[in-house]
């Protein structure tokens, strides 16, 4: 192990940026895979969480249960959107320790990111659903559909077409925000860059390579998103 460090230090001075990148790219890619995993988990669970919270917020508070859920959903988005992600990550990873709950770095990171993303996605989905003309719900109800069926068959299918652009933005933001999870020591892309920055004394090369990989990932994400958006656009002028 010590030999490896010495080797890196010794050669670093004579390397060009290209040499550095060529030498360390494989390690960065391993970190990037963790970043992608983290983002995918947060996108999926954050979207589910957001959909549930959005439906709770929009629905009528007719029964004690729905009224309670509505309150809970409001509290959730208020608290999460009003506090820094960094604090949330610490609370999950270190805070829960106080109650003898020990999570792996990946678990903590994934939970914090999902819960955080869920709150923002709630507002995106809520705005999307509310943007659907009221006449749509009325027409569905007039046919005899229940509220739930009208949501499922008429409102949500229309909303999600409108939701794709803001959701893609949110997913891209999430990918970038996942770099914050490096603070609890999870070796994702950002942490990888920090490790090689200090071990090689080439912080510019080390962080620039991370930046380029982030840029590549967000560009791919956006491109896929735009493609999906186009495919969904058929019926709207």
């Amino acid at each position, binding site marked *: 192990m010590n030999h490896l460090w010495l080797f890196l230090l010794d050669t670093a001075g004579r390397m060009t940026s290209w040499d550095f990148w060529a030498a360390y790219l494989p390690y960065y890619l391993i970190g990037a895979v963790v970043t992608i995993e983290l983002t995918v988990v947060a996108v999926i669970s954050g979207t589910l969480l957001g959909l549930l919270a959005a439906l709770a917020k929009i629905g009528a508070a007719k029964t004690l249960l729905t009224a309670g859920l509505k309150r809970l959903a409001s509290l959730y988005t208020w608290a999460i959107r009003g506090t820094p992600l960094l604090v949330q990550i610490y609370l999950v990873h270190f805070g829960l320790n106080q109650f003898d709950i020990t999570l792996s770095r990946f678990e903590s990171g994934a939970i914090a990111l999902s819960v955080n993303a869920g709150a923002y996605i709630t507002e995106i989905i809520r705005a999307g659903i509310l943007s659907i*003309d009221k*006449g*749509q719900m*009325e*027409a*569905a*109800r*007039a*046919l*005899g*559909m*229940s509220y739930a*069926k009208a949501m499922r*068959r*008429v409102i949500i*299918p*229309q909303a999600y*077409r409108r939701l794709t652009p803001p959701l893609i933005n949110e997913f891209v933001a999430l990918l970038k925000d996942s770099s914050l999870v490096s603070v609890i020591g999870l070796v994702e892309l950002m942490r990888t860059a920090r490790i090689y920055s200090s071990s090689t004394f080439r912080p510019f090369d080390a962080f620039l390579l991370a930046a380029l990989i982030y840029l590549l990932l967000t560009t791919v994400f956006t491109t896929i998103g735009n493609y999906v958006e186009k495919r969904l656009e*058929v*019926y*709207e*002028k």
Partner: protein
Amino acid sequence: MTEPVVRMKGVEKYFGSLHVLKNIHLSVAPGEVLVICGPSGSGKSTLLRCVNHLEPIDEGEIFVLGQPVGFRTLPNGRKVPVKEQDMNRLRSQIGMVFQRFNLFPHMTALENVMEGLVTVKKVPRDEAREKAKRLLEKVGLGDKLQNYPSQLSGGQQQRTAIARALGMEPKLMLFDEPTSALDPELIGEVLAVMKDVAKEGMTMMVVTHEMGFAREMADRVIFMDQGEILEEAEPEKFFTEPEHERTKAFLRRILAS
């Protein structure tokens, strides 16, 4: 005497402090075509929307097909909400046609007509498709089955919306100014479809300012003003010798335009 399709007794409706419907008593007999007219803001849409409980009423009672709408009065006088499923089932027997069509934009004309059949009436898809096709052919849209609403003219959209409502085999049809969002040259095609529906014996409540339609098809015309039914008469009498000054003024304005 047969049970009326719609029976409204002492209906009151408020939007906040705005008194929108005042002591409405109204019955619609089976097969009757009732035309409702009156100035903008007089409560015509609200009246229709109360009939299928898109709007809850504050006082009074409404029965459709003998069933209570929205609230049921217990023998002890207390009011309890009608069960959700019962209300949905009743709504599926009441067709509604909106001023702005309200077709589902993510579905083709065919799918729009099939939707209620499949998801509410649980008709098998193949059967629903055949029925939807027949209905769209009947309203003259046999060649537009696969068009999305955005690819149809206003008149075609409204005819699709009528087909969608008819597909449910309703016992009552509510029309809320079905032609007022249309370009003048498209009004005729929609009125023609409505006349066909009326001739087949459908019970209809129609909010419209198309006085030609009212004269020809209505069994009765009511005039609403500021939330009240001010006048109620057979069309001949309504148009030739209205009783109220406000009705006369309204008719003069409508007929002049």
